[in-house]
Protein backbone atom coordinates (compact mmCIF):
# COMPACT_ATOMS: atom_id res chain seq x y z
CA UNK A 1 0.00 0.00 0.00
CA UNK A 2 1.37 3.42 -0.87
CA UNK A 3 0.56 6.94 0.28
CA UNK A 4 1.96 10.43 0.64
CA UNK A 5 3.72 11.90 3.66
CA UNK A 6 5.20 15.32 4.42
CA UNK A 7 8.56 15.30 6.19
CA UNK A 8 10.86 17.98 7.52
CA UNK A 9 14.23 18.43 5.80
CA UNK A 10 17.12 20.20 7.52
CA UNK A 11 20.17 21.85 5.97
CA UNK A 12 23.15 23.41 7.70
CA UNK A 13 24.47 26.84 6.79
CA UNK A 14 26.70 25.54 4.00
CA UNK A 15 23.66 24.11 2.17
CA UNK A 16 24.46 20.49 2.98
CA UNK A 17 21.56 18.20 3.67
CA UNK A 18 21.70 17.12 7.30
CA UNK A 19 18.67 15.04 8.19
CA UNK A 20 15.06 14.21 7.40
CA UNK A 21 12.59 13.87 10.22
CA UNK A 22 8.93 13.67 11.03
CA UNK A 23 7.40 16.99 12.09
CA UNK A 24 4.57 16.03 14.41
CA UNK A 25 4.37 12.27 14.85
CA UNK A 26 4.43 11.80 18.61
CA UNK A 27 3.05 8.30 18.70
CA UNK A 28 5.31 6.78 16.08
CA UNK A 29 9.07 6.74 16.33
CA UNK A 30 11.32 9.18 14.53
CA UNK A 31 11.30 8.91 10.79
CA UNK A 32 14.52 8.04 9.05
CA UNK A 33 14.95 8.06 5.35
CA UNK A 34 15.28 4.76 3.55
CA UNK A 35 15.82 4.08 -0.14
CA UNK A 36 15.13 0.99 -2.22
CA UNK A 37 18.14 -0.99 -1.06
CA UNK A 38 18.07 0.42 2.44
CA UNK A 39 16.03 -1.19 5.22
CA UNK A 40 12.45 -0.13 5.89
CA UNK A 41 11.64 1.81 9.01
CA UNK A 42 9.93 -0.10 11.81
CA UNK A 43 7.37 1.60 14.04
CA UNK A 44 7.29 1.29 17.80
CA UNK A 45 4.71 2.69 20.19
CA UNK A 46 5.77 5.61 22.39
CA UNK A 47 2.45 6.33 24.08
CA UNK A 48 3.46 6.01 27.71
CA UNK A 49 0.31 7.68 29.03
CA UNK A 50 -2.14 5.48 27.14
CA UNK A 51 -2.85 1.87 28.20
CA UNK A 52 0.12 -0.19 27.06
CA UNK A 53 -0.44 -2.83 24.41
CA UNK A 54 1.88 -5.55 23.20
CA UNK A 55 5.07 -4.39 21.50
CA UNK A 56 4.48 -6.89 18.75
CA UNK A 57 1.10 -5.47 17.70
CA UNK A 58 2.16 -2.09 16.32
CA UNK A 59 0.05 -0.38 14.98
CA UNK A 60 -2.73 -1.23 17.41
CA UNK A 61 -6.43 -0.67 16.75
CA UNK A 62 -6.96 0.98 20.15
CA UNK A 63 -3.88 3.21 19.95
CA UNK A 64 -2.64 5.97 17.64
CA UNK A 65 0.76 4.44 16.90
CA UNK A 66 2.28 3.54 13.53
CA UNK A 67 3.81 5.33 10.59
CA UNK A 68 1.15 7.55 9.05
CA UNK A 69 0.49 7.94 5.35
CA UNK A 70 -2.23 9.72 3.39
CA UNK A 71 -4.04 8.25 0.40
CA UNK A 72 -5.89 11.52 -0.29
CA UNK A 73 -3.21 13.82 -1.64
CA UNK A 74 -5.40 16.93 -1.65
CA UNK A 75 -6.24 16.48 2.02
CA UNK A 76 -2.55 16.20 2.83
CA UNK A 77 -1.90 19.43 0.93
CA UNK A 78 -4.61 21.20 2.94
CA UNK A 79 -3.25 19.90 6.26
CA UNK A 80 0.33 20.85 5.46
CA UNK A 81 -0.33 23.95 3.30
CA UNK A 82 1.79 26.24 5.45
CA UNK A 83 4.59 23.73 5.99
CA UNK A 84 4.96 22.83 2.33
CA UNK A 85 5.35 26.44 1.24
CA UNK A 86 8.08 27.26 3.76
CA UNK A 87 11.51 27.60 2.22
CA UNK A 88 14.70 27.67 4.29
CA UNK A 89 13.48 28.85 7.70
CA UNK A 90 16.56 29.67 9.79
CA UNK A 91 16.80 28.10 13.26
CA UNK A 92 19.51 28.99 15.74
CA UNK A 93 21.14 26.02 17.45
CA UNK A 94 23.14 26.62 20.60
CA UNK A 95 26.23 24.50 21.20
CA UNK A 96 27.38 25.80 24.54
CA UNK A 97 28.68 29.30 23.91
CA UNK A 98 28.90 28.79 20.15
CA UNK A 99 25.84 29.10 17.94
CA UNK A 100 25.16 27.61 14.53
CA UNK A 101 22.31 27.98 12.04
CA UNK A 102 20.14 25.33 10.50
CA UNK A 103 17.59 25.80 7.74
CA UNK A 104 14.29 23.93 7.66
CA UNK A 105 12.10 23.07 4.68
CA UNK A 106 9.38 20.48 4.12
CA UNK A 107 9.13 17.95 1.31
CA UNK A 108 6.38 15.53 0.28
CA UNK A 109 7.38 11.88 -0.13
CA UNK A 110 5.63 8.80 -1.50
CA UNK A 111 5.91 5.99 1.04
CA UNK A 112 5.31 2.26 0.73
CA UNK A 113 3.76 0.50 3.72
CA UNK A 114 4.31 -3.16 4.55
CA UNK A 115 3.61 -5.49 7.45
CA UNK A 116 0.58 -4.86 9.63
CA UNK A 117 -1.39 -1.94 8.24
CA UNK A 118 -4.60 -0.34 9.45
CA UNK A 119 -6.63 1.24 6.67
CA UNK A 120 -8.37 4.51 7.49
CA UNK A 121 -10.83 6.69 5.57
CA UNK A 122 -8.17 9.00 4.13
CA UNK A 123 -4.96 7.12 4.85
CA UNK A 124 -3.26 4.34 6.77
CA UNK A 125 -1.03 3.47 9.71
CA UNK A 126 1.75 1.00 9.01
CA UNK A 127 4.26 -1.21 10.80
CA UNK A 128 7.04 -0.76 8.24
CA UNK A 129 7.47 2.06 5.73
CA UNK A 130 9.97 3.14 3.13
CA UNK A 131 10.20 6.25 0.96
CA UNK A 132 10.02 5.38 -2.74
CA UNK A 133 9.65 8.81 -4.36
CA UNK A 134 9.71 12.58 -3.89
CA UNK A 135 6.86 14.77 -5.13
CA UNK A 136 7.83 17.78 -7.23
CA UNK A 137 5.41 19.95 -5.29
CA UNK A 138 3.12 22.14 -7.48
CA UNK A 139 5.66 21.43 -10.25
CA UNK A 140 7.78 24.25 -8.87
CA UNK A 141 11.03 22.40 -9.44
CA UNK A 142 12.52 23.48 -6.14
CA UNK A 143 16.18 22.63 -5.49
CA UNK A 144 15.17 20.73 -2.33
CA UNK A 145 13.37 17.97 -4.18
CA UNK A 146 16.01 17.71 -6.90
CA UNK A 147 18.70 17.39 -4.24
CA UNK A 148 16.72 14.72 -2.39
CA UNK A 149 16.12 12.64 -5.53
CA UNK A 150 19.80 12.84 -6.47
CA UNK A 151 21.02 12.11 -2.97
CA UNK A 152 18.88 9.04 -2.33
CA UNK A 153 18.32 7.75 -5.86
CA UNK A 154 14.52 7.99 -5.83
CA UNK A 155 12.39 9.35 -8.70
CA UNK A 156 10.85 12.82 -8.84
CA UNK A 157 7.09 12.45 -9.28
CA UNK A 158 5.02 15.14 -10.98
CA UNK A 159 2.43 16.94 -8.85
CA UNK A 160 -0.47 16.05 -11.20
CA UNK A 161 0.26 12.32 -11.21
CA UNK A 162 0.43 11.68 -7.47
CA UNK A 163 -3.27 11.02 -6.75
CA UNK A 164 -3.63 8.75 -9.78
CA UNK A 165 -0.46 6.85 -8.85
CA UNK A 166 -1.65 6.20 -5.28
CA UNK A 167 -5.17 5.18 -6.34
CA UNK A 168 -3.95 2.87 -9.12
CA UNK A 169 -1.40 1.14 -6.94
CA UNK A 170 -3.84 0.54 -4.08
CA UNK A 171 -6.63 -0.73 -6.36
CA UNK A 172 -4.23 -3.09 -8.12
CA UNK A 173 -3.09 -4.45 -4.79
CA UNK A 174 -6.72 -5.07 -3.77
CA UNK A 175 -7.44 -6.95 -7.03
CA UNK A 176 -4.34 -9.12 -6.63
CA UNK A 177 -5.34 -9.94 -3.05
CA UNK A 178 -8.88 -10.87 -4.13
CA UNK A 179 -7.59 -13.18 -6.86
CA UNK A 180 -5.08 -14.85 -4.60
CA UNK A 181 -7.86 -15.48 -2.03
CA UNK A 182 -9.87 -17.42 -4.63
Amino acid at each position, binding site marked *: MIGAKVLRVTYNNINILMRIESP*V*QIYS*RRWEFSTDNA*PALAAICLSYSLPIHSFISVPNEDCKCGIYGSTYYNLLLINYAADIQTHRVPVQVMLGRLSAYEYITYACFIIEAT*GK*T*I*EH*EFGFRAEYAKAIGVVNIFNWGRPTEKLLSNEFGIPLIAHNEVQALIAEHNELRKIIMMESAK
Partner: protein
Amino acid sequence: MNIGKPIKTIYIKRKEGERTLPARIPKEEPIHVPNWPIKREIGVEEVRGR
Protein backbone atom coordinates in the same frame (compact mmCIF):
# COMPACT_ATOMS: atom_id res chain seq x y z
CA MET B 1 -2.16 14.19 9.85
CA ASN B 2 -5.90 13.67 9.58
CA ILE B 3 -6.58 10.15 8.28
CA GLY B 4 -10.17 9.70 9.50
CA LYS B 5 -11.66 6.65 11.17
CA PRO B 6 -10.13 3.16 10.97
CA ILE B 7 -11.80 0.78 8.51
CA LYS B 8 -9.94 -2.55 8.64
CA THR B 9 -6.63 -4.20 9.41
CA ILE B 10 -4.62 -5.84 6.64
CA TYR B 11 -1.30 -7.67 6.54
CA ILE B 12 0.96 -6.88 3.58
CA LYS B 13 3.66 -9.45 2.84
CA ARG B 14 7.24 -8.25 2.98
CA LYS B 15 9.95 -9.17 0.50
CA GLU B 16 12.31 -11.96 1.47
CA GLY B 17 15.50 -10.77 3.04
CA GLU B 18 14.25 -7.22 3.46
CA ARG B 19 15.97 -5.64 6.41
CA THR B 20 14.48 -3.25 8.94
CA LEU B 21 16.02 -0.52 11.02
CA PRO B 22 16.32 -1.54 14.68
CA ALA B 23 13.91 0.09 17.11
CA ARG B 24 15.42 3.15 18.71
CA ILE B 25 13.79 5.63 21.06
CA PRO B 26 14.93 9.25 20.57
CA LYS B 27 16.95 10.40 23.55
CA GLU B 28 16.54 13.77 25.20
CA GLU B 29 19.48 16.05 24.56
CA PRO B 30 21.55 16.76 27.69
CA ILE B 31 21.30 20.26 29.11
CA HIS B 32 24.53 22.19 28.68
CA VAL B 33 25.93 23.47 31.99
CA PRO B 34 28.79 25.94 31.46
CA ASN B 35 31.94 25.16 33.41
CA TRP B 36 33.16 28.75 33.40
CA PRO B 37 32.98 31.23 35.10
CA ILE B 38 32.97 29.34 38.39
CA LYS B 39 30.41 30.96 40.62
CA ARG B 40 31.55 30.23 44.14
CA GLU B 41 30.24 32.33 46.97
CA ILE B 42 33.00 33.24 49.38
CA GLY B 43 31.91 32.86 52.97
CA VAL B 44 32.50 35.51 55.58
CA GLU B 45 34.83 33.32 57.60
CA GLU B 46 36.96 32.57 54.57
CA VAL B 47 37.51 36.27 53.93
CA ARG B 48 38.48 36.90 57.52
CA GLY B 49 41.06 34.14 57.33
CA ARG B 50 42.96 36.06 54.64
